[in-house]
């Protein structure tokens, strides 16, 4: 079975939506995690 070079390129060569690079997506996700931790800390402090 021959390798479909165009299909392979399309599968591997990816770009995220909105951001130009994946590092932008990762920064957003990790920033959201930091926000959640802050919220949890405030939640714990408020109801303690």
């Amino acid at each position: 079975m021959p390798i479909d070079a165009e299909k392979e390129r399309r599968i591997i060569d990816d770009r995220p939506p909105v951001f130009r690079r994946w590092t932008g997506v990762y920064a957003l996700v990790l920033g959201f995690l930091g926000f959640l931790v802050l919220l949890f800390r405030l939640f714990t402090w408020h109801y303690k």
Partner: protein
Amino acid sequence: MSLLDFVVLFGTLLAIAAYGIWKTRGSRDLEGYFRGDHTMKWGTIGLSVMATQASAITFLSTPGLAYEQGMAFVQNYLGLPIALVIVSALFIPMYYRLGVYTAYEYLERRFDLKTRQLGAFLFLIQRGLAAGITIYAPSIILSTLIGWNLDVTILLMGILVVVYTVSGGTRAVSLTQKHQMAVILVGMAVAFLLVVSDLSRHIPFSRALEVAGKMGRLEVINFSLDYSARYTFWSGILGGLFLALSYFGTDQSQVGRYLSGETVTESRLGLMFNAVFKVPMQFFILLTGVMVFLFYQFVEPPILFKHTAVRAVHESSRAPEMRDLEARYSAAFREKREAIRALAAALEGEDEGAIAAAQARAKGLERRAEEIRSEAKDLVVRVDPKMEVKDSDYVFLTFILHHLPRGVVGLLIAVIFCASMSSTSSELNALGSTSTVDLYQRLLRPRETERHYVIVSRVLTAFWGLVAISFAMTAYLVENLIEAVNILGSLFYGTLLGIFLTAFLLKRVGGTAVFAAALVAEAMVIALYFTTDIGYLWYNLIGCGMVLALGTVLQAALPGPRQRRMEPAPKDPVASGPGRG
């Protein structure tokens, strides 16, 4: 359960099973049976990954954990988003570029055959046992509902899952998981709204949260450095990171999910979906458990949530002792309820002194109620020494059965069953595919037809189903189902992750060094488990760290070539990867 509940329950189960069978009709090749044709979009992958992880255990055991211990368990998931970012950035491109079919196939390309087999073996052991717990969880429901013997229930439930998995394959699992996860999310939201609605007859929601906080149930984050504490921010962010990294990066039941993506982008977005929504989802499930705890501060709960245990005593000669305990428990409950009402009133008055006094009284009465419960558990054991009395996994189930309206009960039970069947079938399918591809096809019969491998994989899937059923029949020994799954994973995942991280990061380390390091690390982790009281999440870090460190040291002492040249996948139908058409 009413007739309507049974109609909803069995109607939903049959409809989903029929949907899965109908969608996989004619699927007789490996591509369809194992990979779902590589056509999945990020939404399907995201929900499928979430559904594979969130089984019935999540729905049953987590609220019970919050009922007993509060919200701290959510910290276990704090490392998960970081892990998914690493898997997305490091693992996915590597798997796609090499065109691997299973995660362990990569290890042979990078190291050697024995390392691939070790990786596959570690996966098969821990996932085979974990699948047993996944079968056990819904079986306790059926056992409680109908009053059947638990072992008989496990056998019936397990055989049903095995038949469904063997006949349906991965494609049916992936397609149905998307819908099942949607039903689960809706079911959870309905349960939360109903418990808040029931609770609001006794206390406003905002005041209820304050009471829960004073009763020690809303401590979400704990920055303590106590290494033996089970849930802290540090164990969650570090140990949880390594646990999640191992699970999502090296566990075939998850790798198989995201490698079915149409492109790398779809796979990555599916994981990022989980990175964003998993922690809030767990928080929400735990909060539901806290709401159930609050509900039972105003409505008297049974002395033990496992009513079969109480019934066993009532049917024995020691029934008068249980009746006496129940009377004392009712009296303690009524006193506690008044103390909780006093605490709520003090909170409303914002009088710090009154709040502290009411809080101390409520906690004291809670301890008294717990002591009576302990006496009841001891009595159960005296009547039936084999009876398991740990009942936290029955808390949410009891609430569903006794306090939710007709129809909704059946729907929620169906959700639990569907979630369990979905997760179990995904696990069994991954076990079958790994056994077939990494062991049978690689070692025994490398040049057979696709049809032959499909038949073998079906036989091996059934075999792993039997292993899981056997383990499920001893699962009553474990303390809490969701913890049992995490402990089991932590015992093996660290070593497995260490092998993969060595492959990715330490280019100079070869197969023999990492193989020996992994054996030593696994032996050390198991020894630590039996001899120390270290929080289980740390095993992931310890196992992984030991493989990385020992592998480097051993490699320095070993002669010979260190790095194999990486080759793309061969073009045979079994070993070709998702990017190979």
